[in-house]
């Protein structure tokens, strides 16, 4: 492990350089911060209710207004992030714990053991997370633990299914053969070549699992299988607010927005981390160049009259000055033109 190929400060800077990465880091950082802060302080006490002050609009005391029994919406939103953080961390950890060993085993075990495992994974993938959660909550009652187990299990088998071909691809690659020819042993080959090459794909999978966890928590709590009513949670807030959507349509916006933004941030962050870890993608975002311009000028070049290309013929007589523009217009016209110019 002493020879990590990953350069610690560099990839973080690379993540930040990408718009998706910067957005992801900001939102995720903000959610984490609110979760920690809300443990010690919320603008209004969470349990303070005042039925006479229901559905207040935004004000200095109630930043986002109040709900039907006068609870401060902003405070509950802050506190709800705690549930989100706990569920995301636990469910993602469980996903990794189930997914990676299962994926590695199904890729690396001898065929007579791995093939039944692959079939088993394919069968397990068919069970929707929601169904698993409902099955679990029948005997155990609705709780965040049920959500975590259901998501961890559902996303875990999916991760296993996706990482298996990746592990196979790398372990059968030419560079793995070359590494083995240099004397790299089986275990260090897995740690130093297979894991870093599969890692980026795994990170994207985990970030998606994290997003799924938030949605599942919100959805399951909404349906009554998740957090108990005393636990602040965005899904709970959404569920409470939806009965009053006719009275106060804005009330569903805040928890909904929090959920949507966080899920989006996690997915974008996962993509950005993957790109930052892969040296081949480092400059990819910037490198797409102005090829269109060069090609079209090449076509326009043949001296005036003969530089007639297909699109000209179709459109009839286009003054020469307008020709380059007409040609650049569509990719196909350009391609055909190039063949006919000669």
């Amino acid at each position: 492990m002493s020879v990590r190929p990953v350069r610690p400060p560099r990839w973080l800077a690379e993540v930040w350089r990408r718009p998706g990465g910067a957005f992801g880091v900001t939102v995720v950082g903000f959610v984490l911060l609110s979760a920690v802060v809300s443990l010690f302080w919320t603008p209004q006490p969470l349990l303070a209710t005042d039925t006479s002050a229901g559905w207040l609009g935004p004000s200095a005391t109630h930043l986002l207004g109040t709900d039907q029994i006068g609870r401060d919406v902003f405070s509950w939103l802050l506190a709800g992030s705690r549930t989100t953080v706990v569920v995301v961390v636990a469910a993602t950890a469980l996903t990794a714990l189930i997914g990676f060993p299962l994926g590695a085993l199904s890729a690396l075990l001898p065929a007579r053991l791995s093939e039944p495992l692959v079939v088993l994974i394919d069968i397990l993938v068919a069970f929707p997370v929601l169904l698993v959660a409902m099955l679990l909550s029948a005997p155990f009652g609705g709780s965040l633990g049920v959500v975590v187990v259901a998501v961890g299990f559902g996303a875990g088998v999916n991760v296993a299914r996706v990482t298996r071909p990746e592990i196979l691809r790398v372990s059968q690659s030419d560079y793995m053969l070359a590494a083995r020819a240099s004397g790299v042993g089986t275990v260090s080959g897995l740690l130093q070549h297979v894991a870093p090459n599969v890692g980026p794909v795994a990170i994207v999978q985990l970030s998606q699992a994290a997003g799924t966890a938030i949605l599942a928590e919100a959805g399951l709590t909404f349906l009554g299988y998740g957090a108990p009513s005393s636990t602040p949670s965005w899904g709970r807030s959404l569920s409470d607010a939806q009965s009053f959507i006719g009275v106060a349509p804005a009330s569903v916006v805040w928890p909904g927005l929090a959920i949507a933004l966080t899920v989006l941030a996690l997915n974008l962050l996962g993509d950005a981390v993957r790109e930052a870890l892969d040296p081949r993608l480092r400059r990819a975002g910037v490198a797409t160049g102005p090829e269109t311009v060069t090609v079209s000028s090449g076509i326009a070049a043949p001296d005036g009259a003969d530089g007639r290309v297909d699109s000209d013929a179709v459109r009839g007589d286009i003054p020469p000055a307008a020709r380059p523009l007409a040609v650049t217009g569509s990719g196909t016209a350009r391609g055909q033109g190039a063949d006919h110019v000669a």
Partner: protein
Amino acid sequence: MSLEVTDLVITLGGRAVVDGVSFTVEPGKRLGLIGESGSGKSLTCLAVLGLLPAGAQVSGSIRWAGRELMGAGDRALAAIRGKEIGIVFQEPTTALDPIRTIGNQIGESLRIHYGLSGRETRDRVIRMVDRVQLPEPEHIIRRYPHQLSGGQRQRVAIAMALITGPRLVIADEPTTALDVTVQAGILEVFDDLVTSSGASLIFITHDIALLSQMSGAGVVLAGGRVVESGPVEQIIHAPAHPITAQLAAAARATGWRVPAGVA
């Protein structure tokens, strides 16, 4: 240290792809393994290192420096790979790990076999990079494979194989994937390095023109069997087997002339 391969049989999917191949490489000597693609020459060399694909069955005897490698454990073989026997593969585009730096990969076998410190490894890697004539060694060791041309990558692969000073070097068509102008330069560097190290060499090729630049013994494979063997000069000038004659004809068709010096 000599390599003796006796009666090597490799079976893949129920078919014998290498069927009773025998040859010997004496210390410091060279052997050309010649044959069309699919004749079993690459598999023969992978078998020497115990790197055959899963599912391949192999029998016969492979003796390296008096030790029997056939049936040796992976740990014992790993101790030989990259230390006593180095190999350069055909495909430079895929033979390097895309997410590790050039320097890291060239130094890998040094770290594994000699446990050198980072500083020592770096120094020796830079010296090696310089010897395979890659530009700006200090700079290039921090680059990634995709930032190098095919020819440069093959120089990296040669550096990887030779940095530990192996006693036997296997070159599996090291220049086939490169264009002709690049081939000559790389071959020259490779030839110099192997000659100066005094290592034995197994040179795999289907190209008689290339073979004629490498003197020594030659073995012609066809369909997994040895169809002809002898000094390279003899194989080139008096091919005994139609396959050899065909390969020579193919080389002539691309402008190669039988070298005049040998007769």
